[in-house]
């Protein structure tokens, strides 16, 4: 596996002198292969962004390990050649006084000093066309002259210039309009077909469902359900997953109330802490129902 999270835990120190601590991520394990999209779904405070930041090496882990191609994550030039992150707000991801070409120029200065200018211009043009942007329309523009969807695609194009294998996409479409949001998602689907692994972090279940092969549902820092997307969304086993799915507004259906879980599958099969396999590749955690032993 390309990316592997093993029992990852993250504690943050809080309070005036760091006297208290809060566990943001608790014993999370999953993996991600090339050409695979895994969506990480959870509400605010579930630790989904923290996991993304740890994979990107922006925050150290407190326990457990994250390995990329067999080696532990070490933030640095070589790591970022293969792993890149894109975040929610495209307007604050860019330096407002840099034109778009300069954003690409920074990549050249860091990674491809020896590439001749003509060759570089060709590569930039290619990667812009890959994300369906017209180079003439975006190069030479300042960030404020471009739309949110264009900026997000520009960031993807920037990542494509590198030898990228894994993309951490943290809520990248939540600030976009419905009419352009789907284009960015389709773009990710195309890149996936070319072998790019994507960790798609979102709170929007319908977006996660559109792209991902596998889905990880997080609650308060722990994985509650993990498995193939059609299993997790089609036949959710954990009451929390059911509740989430019932709360999603859908166009052609009434707003349903979650179907209650009558018997705890977990204890019936003798689960004791951690995740239990409920089907092929489909794992579910203890639901903590009132009737639990």
């Amino acid at each position, binding site marked *: 596996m390309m990316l592997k999270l093993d029992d990852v835990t993250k504690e943050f120190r809080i309070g005036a002198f760091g006297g208290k601590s809060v566990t943001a991520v608790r014993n999370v394990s999953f993996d991600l292969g090339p050409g695979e999209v895994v969506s990480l779904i959870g*509400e*605010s405070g579930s630790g989904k962004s923290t996991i993304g930041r740890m994979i990107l090496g922006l925050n150290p882990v407190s326990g457990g390990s994250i390995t990329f191609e067999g080696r532990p994550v070490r933030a640095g030039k070589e790591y970022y050649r293969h792993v890149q992150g894109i975040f929610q707000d495209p307007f604050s991801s860019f330096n407002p006084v840099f034109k778009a070409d300069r954003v690409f120029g920074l990549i050249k200065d860091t990674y491809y000093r020896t590439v001749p200018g003509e060759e570089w211009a060709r590569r930039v043009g290619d990667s812009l066309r890959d994300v369906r942007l017209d180079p003439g329309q975006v190069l030479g523009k300042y960030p404020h002259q471009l*739309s*949110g969807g264009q900026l997000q695609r520009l960031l993807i194009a920037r990542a494509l210039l590198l030898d990228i294998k894994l993309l951490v996409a943290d809520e990248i479409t939540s600030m976009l*309009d*419905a*009419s*352009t*949001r*789907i*284009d960015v*998602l*389709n773009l990710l*689907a195309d890149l996936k077909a070319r072998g790019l692994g994507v960790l798609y972090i979102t*709170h*929007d*279940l*319908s*977006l996660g*469902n*559109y*792209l991902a092969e596998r889905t990880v549902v997080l609650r308060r820092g722990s994985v509650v359900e993990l498995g193939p*997307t*059609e299993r997790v*969304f*089609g036949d959710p086993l954990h009451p929390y997953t059911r*509740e*989430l*799915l019932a*709360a*999603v*507004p*859908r*166009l*052609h259906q*009434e*707003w349903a109330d979650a179907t209650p879980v009558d018997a705890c599958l977990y204890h019936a099969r003798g689960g004791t802490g951690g995740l239990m396999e409920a089907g092929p590749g489909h794992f579910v955690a203890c639901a903590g129902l009132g009737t639990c032993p």
Partner: protein
Amino acid sequence: MSLRVSELKVYYRTLKGEVRALDGLSFGLADGEILGLVGESGCGKSTLGKSLIRLDGRMRHAGGTVVLDGEELPIADDRRMNDYRFHQVSLIPQYAMSALNPTRKIRRMVTELLRSRGVTLDTAELESRMSQVGLPREVLDRYPIELSGGMKQRMVMVVSTLLDPSLLIADEVTSALDVSTQKAVARALLGFRDSGYVKSMIFVTHDLALTHHIADTIMVMYAGRLAEKAPADVIVKAPRHPYTRLLLDSLPEVGVRHTDRRLTGIAGSPPSLLDPPAGCRFRDRCPIAGEECAEDPPVAEVAAGHYVACWKA
């Protein structure tokens, strides 16, 4: 008819000229009706919400009238509007979470707010409304920082409807909330209408699926104008305007996978409202645009309560 907006024009003053954010919008709102207002960013939906309660310094009322319960609202006159705000028209702002004064406990804040409007606080009524949206009475003795986002949002909702306004404008009230909190907030809004705390409501959002669950009527706006307005079910099941159709086609839903059905967005972007092109404003992005679209399409009633501004509909 509780609200009647006719040919409303509101422009933003900028250094480059006037941005025509609302350019001749007309619609009506019946008693007890919830109108869902959807559209892309920059289509004028928030501008409409703001014009009905307060035009800020950059906005200019360029024409048209707003009549609420038979009385014309002086929307261009900031001071005269004061008599209507909170009593007749009330707003739940887009960032309701930061709308509460952080230095006051909720009880004191509400008391002061009501006193400034010459009303004394009826604590029993306040508490009963709070319990209706699932807020315990202890919340009154807390600071805003001690409440979660969803609780703050619901508190603001209770406060802004406390004087039983005739019209409530809810501007993107659920966009910052998690799906389960969003559901609770949306249901609370419906409850307000059903209990008669507000007579009618304009629910501004960009989420079409959510609007469908709350609104009786949906109005789709495009580039400062009305594109289509119809009962919620009609908009979702039988839209007539090409923009509405494309918008619905671009919505991912739970159960739709890109491998089974590839959704498509709408190519291009809305025109600049600084100097909007003549004719139909959706023309450049419209797949079925033709010769006649060079002329402004009038808003036509194609069926009872179904208004469309398109030559081809």
